């Protein structure tokens, strides 16, 4: 952290938008889309690079594991929700313990999003969480959700086919979509339907008959006494099935391979990535080309993401996406180097804004886009931003000089002292220090660092960068990226 600050200080003499490379605007765009928010120091790091070099740098740093240590209980055996013979008091205590674990689980992931050296990994993990949805209300085990989160992260930029096979056998998923209770003679269609509609093919690329036959193929899959994946041959329907016109005694893995053979799977996933990372209106010709390459590469996600981020459409898409609640809250913390004293506050806020991680509303996940913004959520977003900005008021003008300019040296020294003193653990924005360290001199500088598009409300003339922050946070343009 200190290093980042000092590095930024060393770069202060440089203009924000350098002549070569993607510049500050391009860097801010790439960083916010592949991560959460964009700190001016991060922007400085990418601005001089070409598009290819910047995208490759982000992809090269992608990790497959979280850096934040998990809660202590995370690797213990799965909790059993319905143990027999418990007294009412024991049940209550167990429930309280599980609730506490849920809080810790959310806090752990949000902290990882804030602190990770590989924001794209977390962005992709969140993407898969919203694609291969499971939710705590039905799964009921925080450990299972944690294990699924590790799985999604492990494959986040890896092999989609392997990811799909692993997700189908994942205990949280098996519980969420009832695969754990799917037996011969009385197949449960829930997983068979959603795997086609939402995970691979998309609507219109399968029939009700395909669903019924696939449900038969998944019979026999279940969870053992320790809630681990198991095949029970006696509960398995060993008859012939006809799926997508092909006949055979297919099992669950065969069905997944059949799904991967369908061309619409690659198109469906690519479209969804486009809507998440580029814009709400995928370009069909480009998507088809990307999807064909994706399928030819046997579903390697890293090359697909590289190609997607290098499309001209991506670099023209500033302001076309609405920030999700997590992008808004975590992004704001990242941008201003803030650390919440208690992650439960941010988790609660995200829930109010409609994105409670580990609890998507249903198997289709959060609809996203414009649906994030309605009268209620927009007001709650503004309240959060207003509080940060208002908390900042006393700290603003602290280093203002008589002529209205900023005593940058004093502001920088104060911020570094606070870092060294480890007293930055607060949500209090210090606009003067922040502006001084990052050389944000004018309101226009601040707008370029904080907004994807020009502000909707005109900036006050001659305002300093520090003074403009409060207004920019409440500008409608801060809600888009």
């Amino acid at each position, binding site marked *: 952290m200190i290093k980042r600050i000092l590095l930024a200080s060393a770069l202060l003499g440089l203009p924000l938008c350098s002549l070569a490379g993607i510049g500050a605007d391009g860097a801010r765009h790439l960083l916010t889309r592949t991560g959460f928010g964009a700190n001016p120091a991060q922007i400085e790091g990418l601005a001089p690079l070409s598009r290819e070099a910047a995208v490759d740098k982000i992809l090269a740093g992608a990790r497959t594991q979280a850096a934040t240590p998990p809660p202590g209980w995370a690797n213990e055996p799965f909790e059993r929700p319905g143990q027999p013979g418990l007294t009412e008091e024991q049940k209550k205590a167990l429930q309280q313990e599980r609730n506490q674990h849920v809080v810790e689980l959310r806090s752990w992931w949000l902290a990882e999003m804030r602190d990770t050296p590989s924001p794209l990994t977390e962005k992709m993990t969140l993407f898969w969480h919203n694609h291969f949805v499971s939710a705590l209300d039905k799964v009921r085990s925080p450990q299972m959700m944690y294990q699924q989160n590790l799985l999604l992260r492990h494959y986040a930029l890896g092999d989609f086919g392997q990811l799909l096979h692993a997700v189908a056998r994942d205990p949280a998923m098996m519980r969420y979509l*009832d695969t754990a*209770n*799917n*037996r011969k*003679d*009385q*197949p*449960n*269609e*829930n997983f068979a*339907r959603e795997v086609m*509609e939402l995970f691979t093919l998309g*609507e219109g690329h399968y029939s*009700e008959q395909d669903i019924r036959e696939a449900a038969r193929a998944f019979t026999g899959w279940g969870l053992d006494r320790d809630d681990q994946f198991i095949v029970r041959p006696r509960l398995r329907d060993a008859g012939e099935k006809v799926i997508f016109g092909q006949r055979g005694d297919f099992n669950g893995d065969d069905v997944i391979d059949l799904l991967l053979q369908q061309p619409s799977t690659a198109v469906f996933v690519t479209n969804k990535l486009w809507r998440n990372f580029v814009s*709400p209106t995928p370009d069909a010709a480009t998507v088809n080309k990307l999807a064909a390459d994706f399928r030819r590469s046997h579903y390697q996600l890293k090359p697909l993401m590289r190609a997607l981020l290098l499309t001209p459409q991506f670099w023209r898409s500033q*302001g*076309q*996406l*609405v920030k999700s609640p997590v992008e808004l809250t975590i992004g704001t913390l990242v941008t201003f180097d803030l650390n919440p004293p208690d992650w439960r506050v941010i988790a609660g806020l995200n829930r109010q804004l*409609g994105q409670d991680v580990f609890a998507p*509303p*249903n*198997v*289709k996940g959060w*609809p996203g*886009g*414009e*649906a994030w*913004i*309605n*009268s*209620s*959520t*927009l*007001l*709650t977003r*503004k*309240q959060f931003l*207003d509080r940060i900005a208002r908390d900042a008021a006393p700290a603003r003008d602290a280093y203002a000089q008589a002529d209205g300019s900023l005593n940058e040296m004093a502001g920088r020294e104060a911020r570094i002292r606070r870092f060294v003193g480890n007293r930055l653990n607060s949500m209090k924005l210090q606009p003067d220090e922040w502006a001084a360290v990052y050389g944000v001199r004018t309101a226009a500088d601040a707008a370029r660092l904080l907004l994807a*598009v020009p502000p*909707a*409300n005109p900036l006050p003339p001659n305002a300093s960068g520090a003074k403009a922050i409060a207004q920019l946070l*409440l500008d*409608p*343009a801060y*809600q*888009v990226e």
Partner: protein
Amino acid sequence: MFKRREFLKAAGAGLMLTVLPNLSWALAPAGYKRLLVLVELKGGNDGLNTVVPYGSADYYRLRPGIAVAREQVLRINGDIGLHPSLAPLMPLWQDKQLALLQGVGYPDPNLSHFRSIEIWDTASASQQYLSEGWLTRLFHEQPTPKNFAADGVVLSSQVLGPLDGGARAVVLSNPQDFARQAKLVADQPPGHAGSALEHILKVEGDIRQAAASLAPLPRTAPSEAPTAGPKPKGGFGVAVRTLTDTLARGVDIAVARITLTGFDTHGNQQPTQGRLLAELADGLAQLRSEMTRLGRWDDTLALTYAEFGRRPRENGNRGTDHGTANVHFALGGRVNGGLYGQTPQLAGVSEGNLPHAIDFRQVYATAIDGWWGKDSRNVLGGRFATLPLLRT
């Protein structure tokens, strides 16, 4: 101040009608002054265990594990009765203010939650894709009066559903908080290109208008305090209370939509459905009593809907899989209580699904043409026969 009830008495006696032409509000309201309450049963409620064909041996054959026992059914006639959790609706039934619409559906049904609710929300045909909710289309074509706080309010959901795509809709959790927070919206944002930002600016505009109406009013007398009555149980009851508190302020809206979630019952359905139906029935009974207290029950029409019904035959996990035609409720002071549509014909059914007897767009046409006196033809993409479930 003249109390509404006294005025109605006077009006009934034939007095003052010509002297006070501006008090036309006190007559039977027409148009959008009449309130439509849509209740979404999210997840696809199982209709066969809601209005139970207990007289049918086939019902018990198809549902050996989850059928509602004959002796528990609240009997309506010799064939059908209500799930026991719906007991709070029985007084409405007896007062002929509850209509049971049996076999509501549409041709070529879709069994995906998401596509199917899209069909219901947009009133599209099965193979037709529309981007605006059916109410949004109606209000664009035949707008609500300018002084209405909003076209509609949405409770217990962040999804606008039938109000999606541009209606003046407000998501309401708590009117006081809403009015307070609304101060954060700037006064006059300039117009702006780019659709994401445009959407945000539009929502800011809706907030400004609604906030002007929802601002807390000074209370004139304790008896008019909106929160009289017992504290409601469950989220659905709280949403009903929020709605009636808002209406008690004299706020004008044409429609309210309340969502009750959790009906996606693939396994161990009975306890979940029983709990949800009880919450539904309690909330609807509460809606009746509070709207009656406000003198507006005769101007209220409540309709339930869901993306689909469930299959007649239970699955192997004491649950039901996605099905088609479903039963729905219509209730209100002007509702002609009774049975509409067709009781499910289960003889000979094994794996299959039930055909529909009432097209869901007939229900919408009834609301648009019959309730509001507007024209549903363009909104619904054709003429759908209304149901005779409203008294004039």
